[in-house]
């Protein structure tokens, strides 16, 4: 081994505390990068594999009714590959606890199981019902409610209870992420399930003999999907197409893609921040080492080593950190990627297609880390070039001292205690380094704000959506549209403070070539349940004729307040109309548009028609309405709240992980900064000891410096954290879910508390170093 490399190894050994603390940061960065990147690939592969195996639909067409015979015609549409009709209707399920409201989606399966959206049988059970009284139950629901094969479930169909035997349990690629509708914030598999029954049975029970209300379609080429949709819309409009949903827009797929994107984003942003902080520490550390080694560098140059050799000698220190960190991090990442992928696929309920190790990520990781470390190493050690062998033999001249601005304000300065004066002077002596450290700590602080924001945002989204924007206690959906008299009928059945009609129908909003299928909801203009607020948080009221759309839809369709928009009806015989976007309102969950119910009836539908109601009531509506015909679902805000609270508990773990990440960064920064500071100022401390300062005084001086640094970092970190939160909101918000920008003081206070704790731990870790300084040796040393 070359002697310079041997020297490097011994140098590392001597500064092992610092070396390890920076290596840990690099290792964590690489571990996160590899673990989440590989996990993303694994999940993505698993989903693709699962979609392929089960032959997932490319399109789902929801219609009022389409006869079986028309499917043949559908097959002849250019670009259509396969077609399969089905019945899909949500019904209440009777469960042992009468207070519990559970809905189940009954979906028909052709005899033999069909060719599109094939079920994936679990544990060898059958994947198609052979008898009219048999159902195949979706796995998540069966698990959540502990239902097994041969159990009986009793859905209430058209007011009548049907006893159906669970013939098998299966999973479905269509319901990887099981959510009832777009308004559900979270999956609640014990409250909503899917049961597959024989086609003939559901056709007769629901009155769809010889016809369907949904058609699944696969296409020859997904790239042509929009053309296929246009053709289908034109030719099959007469069957009352309500909505055509592409696979990419299907609820389960959409959420899944968002989750995968979220993991992917985490796999790049977090490691970048970690590497950046590592780079800051490395460059500060190396600049200190080079300064300490000034004379040795001079000797090396006198011996005939050139600038490049000496510079690369020190840069190798950084590279050693990078490579050691990479190897440990990558090994850890690969080890954890497997269980992590398992956790995700089992969470998503998909069979794992196999673990794939992408060597590209390993190479990327090593390259990226090397670039960061070499860059910061060169930056930190660049002073090597300016060290002249002749100069280095002489002690370094003290840096030119000059008065600071604050010193000129005599009135203030003379009141500053001496120990604080030293602290301030020392900070000002290394302004650039101080700025770097503050930036690093601010980043660690920013990382801490993100999980705190997430938990706050989830609570807030829920509270805003169901406390402020929608104030009903229950939302009731009818299985078929009803006359407004239904409200009067309902008020006889339940004890309600107020009942408001609701008209909820899918339409396509079109602006130029941009279009979007949304639920258009009609509510009375003087609605007591819906509160609309614009971007500035000002209250807005529904207009007589115009339409309100969410910010997300406005963004997607590129429309502004006051623009005209085409509302395309799926109902046969209804003309498309043009409406003005009177306002753009805030809504966190779901992609909706709202308008006055009367205008909606008049312009788009039939008079006197409602599809559901919103109710304010303390009554137990689920119990009271369980036997009522024509009610497809009764959703209570209370139930959603309960599911939400349970979910928040599981989120705590993720919050802890994030805080730990921020903590590691904060720790490493403070620990290294303190160690470097001590080694630089050992002579100064020795002199102070001789003057009568004790170890505690010196330690308290260092503590003061770190406290000032942490304090400023927190102040700088607040806008940085806010920017990270904004970035988070931008990248995680979709048309289905809009994260609110919440910059609540408690997020920043809690993040500050977490930062203070980690800084304090790092500070304590350096206690021994300060107490073990040999002051006599320090004074003898020629170079400080």
């Amino acid at each position: 081994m070359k002697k310079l490399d041997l020297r490097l190894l011994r140098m590392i050994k001597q500064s092992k505390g610092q070396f390890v603390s920076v290596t840990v940061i690099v290792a964590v960065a690489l571990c996160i990068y590899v673990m989440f990147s590989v996990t993303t690939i694994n999940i993505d592969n698993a989903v693709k594999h699962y979609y392929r195996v089960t032959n997932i639909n490319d399109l789902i067409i929801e219609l009022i009714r389409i006869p079986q015979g028309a499917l043949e015609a559908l097959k002849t549409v250019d670009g259509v590959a396969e077609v399969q009709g089905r019945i899909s209707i949500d019904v209440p399920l009777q469960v042992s606890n009468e207070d519990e409201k559970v809905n189940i989606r009954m979906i028909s399966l052709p005899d033999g199981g069909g060719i599109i959206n094939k079920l994936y049988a679990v544990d060898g059970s059958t994947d198609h019902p052979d008898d009219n009284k048999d159902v195949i139950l979706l796995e998540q629901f069966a698990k959540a409610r502990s239902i097994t094969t041969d159990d009986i479930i009793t859905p209430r169909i058209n007011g009548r209870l049907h006893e159906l035997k669970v013939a098998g349990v299966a999973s479905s690629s269509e319901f990887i992420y099981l959510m009832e509708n777009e308004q559900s914030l979270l999956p609640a598999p014990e409250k909503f399930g899917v049961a597959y029954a024989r086609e003939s049975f559901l056709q007769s029970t629901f009155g769809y003999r010889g016809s369907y209300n949904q058609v699944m379609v696969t296409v020859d080429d997904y790239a042509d999907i929009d053309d296929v949709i246009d053709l289908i819309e034109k030719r099959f409009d007469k069957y009352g197409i309500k909505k055509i949903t592409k696979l990419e827009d299907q609820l389960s797929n959409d959420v899944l893609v968002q989750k995968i994107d979220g993991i992917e984003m985490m796999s790049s942003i977090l490691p970048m921040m970690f590497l950046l902080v590592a780079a800051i520490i490395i460059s500060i550390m190396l600049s200190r080492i080079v300064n300490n080694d000034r004379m040795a560098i001079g000797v090396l140059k006198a011996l005939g080593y050139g600038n490049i050799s000496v510079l690369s000698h020190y840069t190798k220190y950084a590279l050693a950190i990078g490579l050691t960190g990479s190897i440990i991090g990558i090994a850890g990442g690969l080890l954890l990627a497997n269980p992590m992928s398992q956790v995700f696929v089992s969470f998503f309920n998909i069979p794992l297609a196999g673990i794939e190790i992408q060597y590209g990520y390993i190479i990327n990781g090593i390259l990226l880390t090397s670039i960061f470390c070499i860059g910061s190493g060169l930056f930190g050690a660049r002073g090597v070039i300016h060290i002249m062998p002749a100069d280095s033999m002489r002690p370094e001249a003290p840096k030119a001292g000059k008065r600071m601005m604050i010193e000129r304000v005599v009135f203030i300065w003379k009141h500053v205690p001496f120990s604080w004066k030293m602290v301030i002077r020392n900070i000002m002596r290394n302004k650039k380094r101080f700025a770097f450290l503050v930036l690093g700590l601010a980043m660690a602080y920013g990382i801490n704000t993100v999980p705190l924001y997430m938990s706050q945002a989830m609570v807030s989204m829920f509270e805003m959506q169901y406390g402020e924007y929608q104030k009903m206690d229950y939302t009731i959906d009818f299985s078929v549209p009803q006359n407004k008299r239904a409200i009067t009928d309902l008020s006889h059945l339940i004890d309600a403070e107020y009942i408001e009609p609701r008209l909820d129908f899918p339409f396509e909003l079109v602006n130029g070539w941009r279009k979007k299928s949304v639920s258009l909801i009609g509510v009375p203009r003087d609605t007591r349940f819906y509160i609309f607020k614009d971007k500035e948080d000002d209250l807005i009221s529904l207009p007589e004729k115009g339409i309100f759309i969410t910010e997300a839809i406005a963004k997607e369709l590129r429309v502004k307040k006051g623009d005209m928009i085409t509302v395309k009806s799926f109902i046969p015989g209804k003309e498309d109309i043009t409406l003005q976007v009177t306002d753009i309102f805030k809504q966190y969950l779901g992609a909706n548009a709202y308008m006055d119910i009367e205008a909606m009836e008049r312009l788009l539908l039939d008079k006197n028609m409602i599809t559901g109601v919103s109710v304010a009531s303390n009554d137990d509506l689920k119990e009271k309405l369980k036997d009522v015909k024509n009610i497809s679902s009764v959703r209570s805000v209370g139930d959603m709240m309960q599911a939400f609270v349970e979910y928040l508990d599981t989120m705590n773990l993720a919050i802890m992980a994030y805080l730990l990440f921020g903590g590691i960064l904060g720790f490493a920064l403070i620990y290294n900064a303190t160690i470097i500071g001590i080694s630089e100022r050992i002579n100064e401390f020795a002199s102070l000891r001789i003057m009568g300062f004790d170890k505690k005084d010196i330690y308290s001086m260092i503590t003061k410096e770190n406290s000032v640094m942490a304090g400023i970092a927190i102040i700088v970190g607040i806008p940085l954290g806010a920017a990270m939160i904004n970035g988070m909101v931008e990248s995680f918000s979709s048309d289905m879910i809009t994260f609110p920008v919440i910059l609540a003081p408690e997020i920043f206070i809690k993040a500050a508390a977490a930062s203070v704790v980690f800084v304090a731990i790092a500070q304590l870790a350096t206690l021994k170093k300060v107490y073990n300084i040999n002051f006599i040796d320090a004074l003898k040393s020629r170079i400080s």
Partner: protein
Amino acid sequence: MQSNILMKVENVSKDYRMGEVKVNALQEASFEINEGEFIVILGPSGSGKSTLLNILGGMDLPTTGKVVVKGEEINSYNDRKLTAYRRDKVGFVFQFYNLMANLTAKENVELATEMCKNSLNIDEVMEEVGLAERKDHFPSQMSGGEQQRVAIARAVAKNPLLLLCDEPTGALDYKTGLLILSLLHKINRQHNKTVVIITHNMAIGDMADRVIKMRSGRIVEIRENENPIPPERIEW
């Protein structure tokens, strides 16, 4: 004889700028160094002797004047050529030894020889400086004299044309100082290596073939020593 001249210093001056002030560290120095000569440059602090040594060793460049080594003007060298010059032609011995603290004695010597083409056998050199038994010790485990012997071994093992020693006894006691001077003398006489010592210690001048005296950046005297005395007889 012309062929015996190793180095020719012609009108060499060196100015430094320290803030607003211009310092003439060396002015119009001219002399020659012959192959195998033992030269002592004498002078008090600030006389410019270290500056001169740095220029001779290629650690610094003159402001004006020429330094010709074996027919090549090193004052016109760029950084890369100067590095090569220091690597292949010069061996340095410093007052404070300047060993690498985290390398053993032998490793310190190897550090210097690793990049040289004609280096000597390290074990033999260690033997020569009397450190064969101590070669695996770290500098912190050695006395000042031992450390200086390692430094000499490091300089000699490269097999340079010229050995430049900056106050080699400055940090040592009298007895150890003499031992170091004897070692340098032996290297000069037995291996025919050119040795240049700079010192403020007048007594050391007595062992030189030639003494160059300096004061205030100028050479004030160049004196041939007809009968150099062996280092063992020097006293201060």
